[in-house]
């Protein structure tokens, strides 16, 4: 997904200027060269995507892929500004109505036209879904009016365009869920093949912003964290999200540029329903939260910024910083909370907790999550309980988490919205608490009450916010990160093209 102020073909002056700024451009800035159409690139995702349904996306990888295959009404550019994408302009809000005119001539990958009917059906599906319905909690009605989409709102929302820029609202034909192995969208790339460890995409010639520069794009994921770096180091990939070399001190084959996103990807501990009596107890959650050694989470990863967190709102988006006290396990607090929990849950009594064994699910394509899970095991051990780590593929993880068929899992959440209320709402939505998610998203709970509510209920346990650091070949241009730490792949080009 990329921010395109103008179609690619008229970007020439900007490209020249950008070339000059390339060497001193800070992280986050948009790389430019002399773009040329053609070529193929091999890159990586932050793990395996679970699927292509925008409503069901749960991870950074899901969001990245959805952004390449589908379009949303709006998009957030590298400058953080919301720009129209499928929409022709920003919403026209009059009283409780918001009218959105659609860009004409947009086609899906199968050649069919994208119309207001598709948009309305998509938004209606989002509103009705358990996973993403909280986003449109303020929308009372969605209707087609000619080539426009008209939303009836409970109350005016300044962040409506931003909401409609989130990947959950990506438009699908007739609002239907995409087919598992043949998703049809209107995005810059379409899926040509899905394999065991990669997606193969090809440029969509009919994209609304013009076809991407690259003809083909291969996105890979790895079970072993070192294999990705080694692939890049030996010239097998154009970029790596896990370092440029397998071992620190090594040298990659190609000249390399580093780029890092804001630390806005939340890595959290989610709860399932298997030991619902134990894990549903707030005091137990508080005990576990207190027993975690968060300070060490700053060392997880391959050198990208990792900020231990006790709150889902990232530090970079105004969230609280971790105090020195909270960095270490607070065993006195944990024991007190556990004692309160034990008074209500027999299984947590001192003489019984040793028999408790909890399962922590992790995605096998996100190796850092295993290290994170190990820390959770250690925290549970401090409480006297046992835990095991089960690594499964992304599809299995999504299936079991959706069904609640686990005790704990390590999840990723991208902060698409920026606003604290929406981030808290997202946290409650992840936990399946639509009531509080809707209230937070609808503005019924604001200010310090949001933090208090979150701290009291702990729908998820925030672990840390991480940045995404990409090491890419110097001949790969156009890379940038949005505020949700998604890499702007659609504007990538190889220069010079051989």
């Amino acid at each position: 997904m990329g921010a395109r102020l103008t179609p690619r073909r008229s970007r020439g002056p900007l490209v020249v200027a950008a070339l000059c700024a390339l060497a001193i451009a800070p992280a986050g800035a948009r790389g430019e060269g002399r773009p040329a159409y053609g070529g193929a690139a091999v890159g990586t995702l932050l793990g395996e995507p679970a699927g292509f349904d925008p409503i069901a996306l749960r991870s950074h990888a899901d969001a990245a892929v959805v952004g390449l295959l589908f379009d949303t009404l709006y998009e957030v550019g590298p400058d953080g500004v919301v720009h129209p994408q499928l929409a022709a302009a920003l919403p026209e809000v009059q009283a409780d109505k918001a009218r959105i005119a659609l860009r004409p001539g947009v086609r899906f990958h199968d050649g069919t036209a994208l119309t207001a009917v598709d948009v309305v059906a998509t938004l209606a599906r989002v509103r009705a879904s358990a996973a993403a319905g909280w986003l449109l909690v303020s929308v009372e009605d969605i209707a087609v009016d000619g080539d426009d989409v008209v939303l009836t709102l409970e109350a005016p929302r300044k962040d409506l365009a931003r909401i409609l820029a989130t990947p959950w609202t990506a438009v699908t034909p007739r609002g239907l869920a995409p087919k598992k192995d043949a998703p049809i969208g209107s995005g810059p790339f379409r899926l040509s093949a899905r394999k065991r460890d990669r997606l193969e995409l090809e440029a969509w010639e009919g994209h609304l912003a013009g076809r991407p520069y690259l003809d083909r794009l291969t996105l890979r994921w790895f079970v072993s964290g070192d294999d990705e770096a080694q692939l890049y180091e030996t010239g097998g990939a154009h970029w790596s999200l896990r370092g440029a070399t397998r071992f620190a001190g090594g040298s990659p084959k190609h000249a390399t540029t580093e780029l890092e996103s804001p630390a806005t990807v939340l890595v959290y501990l989610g709860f399932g329903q298997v030991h619902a009596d134990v894990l549903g107890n707030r005091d137990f959650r508080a005990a576990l939260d207190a027993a975690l050694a968060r300070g060490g989470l700053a060392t997880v990863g391959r050198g990208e910024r990792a900020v231990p967190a006790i709150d889902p709102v990232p530090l970079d988006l105004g969230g609280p910083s971790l105090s020195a006290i909270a960095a270490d396990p607070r065993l006195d607090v944990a024991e007190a909370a556990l004692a309160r929990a034990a008074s209500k849950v027999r299984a947590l009594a001192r003489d019984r907790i040793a028999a408790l064994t909890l399962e922590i699910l992790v995605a096998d394509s996100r190796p850092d999550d295993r290290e994170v899970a190990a820390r959770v095991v250690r925290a549970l051990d401090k409480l006297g309980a046992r835990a095991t780590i089960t690594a499964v593929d992304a599809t299995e993880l999504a299936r079991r988490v959706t069904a609640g068929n686990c005790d704990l899992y390590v999840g990723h959440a991208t902060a698409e919205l920026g606003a604290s209320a929406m981030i808290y709402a997202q946290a409650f939505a992840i936990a399946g608490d639509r009531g509080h998610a809707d209230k937070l998203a609808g503005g019924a709970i604001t200010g310090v009450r949001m933090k208090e509510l979150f701290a009291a209920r702990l729908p998820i346990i925030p672990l840390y916010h991480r940045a995404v650091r990409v090491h890419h070949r110097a001949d790969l241009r156009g890379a940038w990160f949005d505020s949700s730490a998604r890499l702007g792949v659609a504007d990538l080009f190889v220069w010079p093209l051989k």
Partner: protein
Amino acid sequence: MRLRGRFTLWFALAALVPIAVAALVTREVVARSFRNDYERTRSAAEAAMRHELTRLEAQVVTAAQALASKNHPFIGTVLTDLINGGGQLDAKGQLRLRDWSSQEMSGLGLNVLMVTGPNDRILSAAHDRGLVGERAVEPRQLARSDGGGAVYRFEKVMGPRTMATILVVEAARSAKDGGQEVHVLVGRQLDADLVDSVRRPGQIDARLVAADDGRELIAPRASWTGLGTPPVRIALTGPDGKPVAWLEVAAWDRNLSALLDQVTLVAAVMAAGAIFLTILLGAMVARRITRGLDLLVVGAQAAARGDLEHRVPMTSKDEVGEVGRAFNLMMEDLRSAGDRLVIAERIAAWQEIARRLAHEIKNPLTPIQMAMDTLRKVWRKQHPSFGEILEESTTTVLEEVERLKRIVSEFSDFARLPKPAPMPTDINEVVAGALALYEGATPVERRLADGLPTIEADKGQMTQVLLNLLENARDAISGKEDGKIVVTTRKGDAGDRVELAVEDNGPGVASDIRDRVFTPYFTTKQGKGGTGLGLAIVHRIVGDHGGRIMVTEATSLGGARVVVELPLRPGQLLLASRV
């Protein structure tokens, strides 16, 4: 026990005793030698285990010493990064430390490698990344402990899926530079490889047990129940000097028991085999040897029966064969002598019979002659009592002629006694029949055994035997008011004959004449009607039936007792009568 059996038994004993002695001696020698070997093995295993522990301890101490130096590229760089970061490591430094510590740990063959920095913060933990950022005081404390040797500790480490507690031998050292200090803790896990180094299947085993609750950390390969000797225990001490675990080394003498059992089994099998072979061999040898003796016994029995035609078929050239051949010569001589003797005896017997017959005949002839002489004298003298004398002489002559006729008749009966016609006969029935014919006044007491087996006998002749014996007994007690005759039948003690006895309480038969009572014309009833052929006839009949007859004292009645033994099996000859 028969000679053959005794021979075989001695053969078996002769073989068994040396085998048993050999087995016992072998067993004892093996046991002693094995026990010595066992002790040596046990001591060697303990020494090997201690050596291995010492090696492990030295390894971790050496590794800690080598790493914890500011001149070491790994720790030296960490110290430099800390100095530059004001006591903090930046992300690059952290990443570099993480990668290098993994490589160092693998390269040094360690299982634990931890580096702590300021405030005991764990900077890296190559064995468990989840520890990074937490606090650990052990590296600093251990690095500063007296002696600086290795200690044993339980560490919780993250495995592929869950946390596990392992026992490690650890050492720690500190390194300083530029006001910054780091502590390096290294360790090796005590795993199955340690105990496998001394294990020998069936002989040596080892296990690791926790000191606090005795739980097995490394289980033995086999069960330790029934261990003859307690295992050697080696203490693995923690930082406080107290054992955290025990390494136990056990040596088995199972092999000894098994070996001894094997030796015993082999000896038993050998003994059984030897007994079987010796019994077989003994039986064969005994048979060979005693066969000749058996033949000699048969020959002797034949000779005793009077069968002088019998020869012992002896072909062996040994002493037994010589005895056999000598026996045959003797039998030949006896037969020749016997033939002559038989002829002589026969001649003598007929001479005796003729003499006795002549004597018997002469007896009545004398009164006949005297009566005729008297009658001729009286006729010549025309004696007035001629008529009376004629009557008297005629009576005398007629009586004597009757007597002569009886003598001739009895002699004829004796000479022409027919061969018995044997048929299954119940001797008790014979007794009953004979007693029915008996005309004596004295009642005869019967003591007849029930259930006697039948014998092959001529019923008529046996009846005659019994009548003759009853007549003799009646004659013996004639004139006695309390005369008593008892007839007894029973099965013979040998089990192969039936016994018929007639006893009386008469005067008995003097021992000096008992051997002559069966001689023809021998009688103690001179002038009392006895011809002297009765018992001879009885003797002949009994002999023709293969039986035997003897005269003894009637111990219960005080008179004579005549016992007739008759064989049960047809054709069986009882030993010759004691005549």
